[in-house]
């Protein structure tokens, strides 16, 4: 464990150092470019174009896993740090000024949203992944609906068997009134994202309070139901967090592809009408 932390820290230091070095190099070249009376926006513009295309290649790399193009994890690291470098180039390009033209406003907004969604995704992948690893059984996201259905069917069978075998409807009533909806669909998504677990304690307290009204055979059934409730809550937890980890890409990727044609048009207009040599 300690060794992996050291490796992670060292990797972060190395990658951050490389990024910082490239950023300093960009600033120096930017200054030299301005000193030689060139329009630095063409320089930073091309850096931006290169950065955006390079970042988009990460997605292409994932689509073509068979090619020997290094590991996806390595690409992710490049993607993350190149993203920060591209953001710096963006600020150099815009001069920290807000755009005024509609097309430039669109381009600026798209890039800012891409950057923000990327930063949010990076944060989520750091925070939520750690929480997922620390939270019980780790099901595959696509299997969670099936597992949830299995649990629901199992609890329903236990409730029916209790009523049939012991002629007591206490558990069956409780299942109908409280647990049926709980097992029918994912619940408490916001509570899981924020880490609150009050809902689970509330359910388990209810189940515990039923023990005084049932005999020993039903207590055993009730214990199995309580275990299923905990398992279902764990599935909901993973469903909420894994779903969120997948959801930010629904913002990041469409914006990333949408910015390409707008940037291309911006470049054509700049070269055609800026009236200056790069």
């Amino acid at each position: 464990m300690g060794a992996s932390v050291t490796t992670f820290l060292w990797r972060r230091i190395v990658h951050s150092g490389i990024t910082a070095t490239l950023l300093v190099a960009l600033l120096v070249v930017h200054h030299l470019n301005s000193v030689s009376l060139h329009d630095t926006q063409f320089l930073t513009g091309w850096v931006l174009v290169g950065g955006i295309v390079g970042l988009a290649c990460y997605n292409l790399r994932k689509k073509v896993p068979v090619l020997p193009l290094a590991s996806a994890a390595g690409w992710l690291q490049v993607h993350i740090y190149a993203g920060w470098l591209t953001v710096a180039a963006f600020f150099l390009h815009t001069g920290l000024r807000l755009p005024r033209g509609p097309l430039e406003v669109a381009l600026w907004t798209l890039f800012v949203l891409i950057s923000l969604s990327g930063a949010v995704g990076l944060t989520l992948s750091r925070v939520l992944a750690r929480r997922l690893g620390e939270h019980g059984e780790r099901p595959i996201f696509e299997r969670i609906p099936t597992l949830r259905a299995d649990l629901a069917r199992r609890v329903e069978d236990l409730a029916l068997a209790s009523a049939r075998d012991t002629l007591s409807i206490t558990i069956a009533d409780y299942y109908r009134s409280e647990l049926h909806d709980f097992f029918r669909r994912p619940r408490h998504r916001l509570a899981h994202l924020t880490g609150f677990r009050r809902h689970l304690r509330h359910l388990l307290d209810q189940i515990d309070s039923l023990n005084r009204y049932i005999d020993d055979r039903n207590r055993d059934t009730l214990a199995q139901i309580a275990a299923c409730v905990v398992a279902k809550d764990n599935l909901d937890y993973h469903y909420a967090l894994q779903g969120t980890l997948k959801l930010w890409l629904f913002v990041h990727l469409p914006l990333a592809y949408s910015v390409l044609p707008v940037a291309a048009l911006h470049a054509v207009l700049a070269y055609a009408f800026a009236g200056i040599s790069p």
Partner: protein
Amino acid sequence: MTESQPTGHFKGRSRTYDRPNQDWLCGRSASDPGVCRAGPDARGRCGAAPGCAPRRDGDRWQCTRPTAAGGPCADGPQPDGACRHQPTHCAPRRSLRSWRGWLTGIALTITLGLLVVVLTGSARERLLTTGPLTLDHGVIKNCTGCHSLFGQGPAAWLNAALDADHRHRDDRLCLGCHELGTTPRHIHSRPPEAIAAVTEEVLDGHHGNPNPPLDVQLASLIFSPPDPASTEIGCGTCHREHRGAHVDIRAMSNAACQACHQVQFASISDGHPPFRHFLTARRERIIFDHVSHLKRHFLDRDFRDKAPATCVSCHGSDPTGNFMTTLSFEATCAACHRGDIGGAALAGNKGIKFLAIPGLDLIELKQRGIDIGEWPGQSDEPLTPFMVQMLRHDRHLASLLDQIGTVDMRDLRRATPDQIQAVARLAVAIKRMLADLLTGGMPMVETYLTPEVEHLSTKGSAADFGTLFGHLPAEVVRSAAERWFPHLADDLAKPLPILPATTPGGAAATMPAATGAPASSDQSDILADAPAVPPDQSDILADAPAAAPDQSDILADAPAAPPDQSDILADAPAAAPDQSDILGDAPAAPPNQSDILGGAPATPPDQSDILGGAPATPANQSDILDSASVTPPPPDAAPKLPATAAMPPAVDPERWMANGGWYRLDFALLYRPTGHADSFLRSWLEIAASQPYGQSAANREALFASFNTPRSPGACLKCHSVDGARANNGDGAAEDRIINWYARRFEPEDRGFTRFSHIPHFSLVSQYGCQTCHLLTEGAVGRSDSGFREQFRRLDPRANVVTNFDGPATRTCASCHTAEAAGDSCTQCHRYHVGRFPARSVPTRMEVMPTPPG
């Protein structure tokens, strides 16, 4: 651990693989345990199949379900061989990955669609603009006003983007409104050679660190540095539009300036070169030695009361408040120097000789057997440069002058026969020029000065023939002609003098004799001999045939009867004086030596006529302008004034014309300047200073020299310096000498590298006033070797400049101009676009226009 979990989803073999990386997933409900192992295909079709493909074994069918699927089923296949477990087909559903790709495709499609709408729609200009224009450019309503290709659509834009040569083409649209000279996109809008010269000059005198900073060196290695000889800088390089209505697009950073300026410094207080060019780049245009005036002349008791009290007695700001000008001559110098122009202090002639009858060696001419007719033998005047200038416009006369060359016409003993012949014909030409003046006045002699007038008009001068002749009065010419050539008409009626084939003695005996023009000679030769027969009627000076007197010959002798009344200059007959000839000579009167326009007479002067040679007749005394008899007024009709004869001029003609004008002195007509900015002197000086446009370079030099001596009347060049044209404009070809008629003036069309506004700084000067910045050079006081006056002998106004002032020190400016106080940016004091940029005019046709809309 996982085995104990209620979900038990890690039980491996009992579960199927869900293929989340595929676009389609099995569509069976989550509660349905029968998720098929095959799953949907790539197009989203259900891939469910029977549990197995039964194998026939003899007459029985065997189940082949694999062990992973539960092994062979207990029921076995149906009798017909079909599997008993037929699948239930589902509607496959998209995976999250597929949904993400679909959403990305939709977003991309929408983006492209919007771009197509933007590029082809009517709101294209509004949507593609990169921001509002500045207020000044806000009147440009459409993009094509500055971007010529914008209206041609995206394909043209793409072509333009890929065409490097296109990028500066739209600069011409900028230059359509902004006049920046002939090289607007070169560095500083100046020709490369001019920039190279300035660069060399600046670097030569720079005492700072000549090594460029590290970043400049690196930049020159990585990026191509601007080359002054070839680099063209587009307008957009520095002026970025579309950044808002109130943005100053002329603002430039110091770094932008120092992109080219390799000798860099931090600010005006830190490394700025001294202002050595401020006063020494060019000498002053008006030769005024401040030091000698302030330290010597103004302290003289004779001039002390006339000395200016303060600097603003002679200098004032122009209307813009930027420039300090020198006030007019009357306001500054006239108090002491007005008399210098009139020649009051000159020992010799106070006027300039314009027309003169040159002295000729009449004895030698006679010995050579040539008769030039009447000629004042006492004259020893040289031919004036003015006369040479005028005579040379006739090519035959020019050739005569060339033949004469440097021969002294007053001593022709060593002259060749050709030169003798040329002198004789020149003498006739001078008589004819005089006759032209007498008979035709100014219109007749305009041909003598037409090239001069045309040349002056090309230089913007308003000088005309009247100016160049000094508005010479006819009476002055007539009076002079009578003195010099009493029988001018008779002389001119004679054939041209011809050198005989053999002359009595002298070198001419061995020289080929000059011959007269043949009968078929060129009629355009105004000096050619008139043919014997037939007479050329066009020759107004030729002898008129006796049988048919030519009435057009206004100088010919009038026939005895009847007198030609049209000849206003012909001698009036004694019997019947022509009353219409108001300028005609009074008959039979000897030349009146008392004429104040004439020279001092040898005989006791008759001082009864101050203008003309009037006879001592009672009638003549009644009219000072007309020598003809006019009835005197009755004695009681006029106040009793002293008789004109009793008012002899008490001064000589030169003093009589002390305030300027024409007068005659012996055998010359002289012009005395009328005051400052005399148009006659100024016009002739302009001609003398001009680069020869004919073939009279030597005479033009002589003409210029006649103005450029300490004794020259008018003393124009005592104060007005003369520049060589090449040195003056810096980059032009050698042209004229330029006479600086004015002190340096503010020319709004001239934009120099440095700008300074005086008025805002007046409140900041110390008790030293103007000398807070303009310090007098104390070391030059009273020293003859200061070189101040000597510098004006050179034509180059920028060579070895000696100034009366030390320039202001950079520390003086830097005391206020800091980043925190008055500012210290480069463009606060320096301009980028340098040159002469005339303001645009509005080309409005002179016709009635329809009412403009709105």
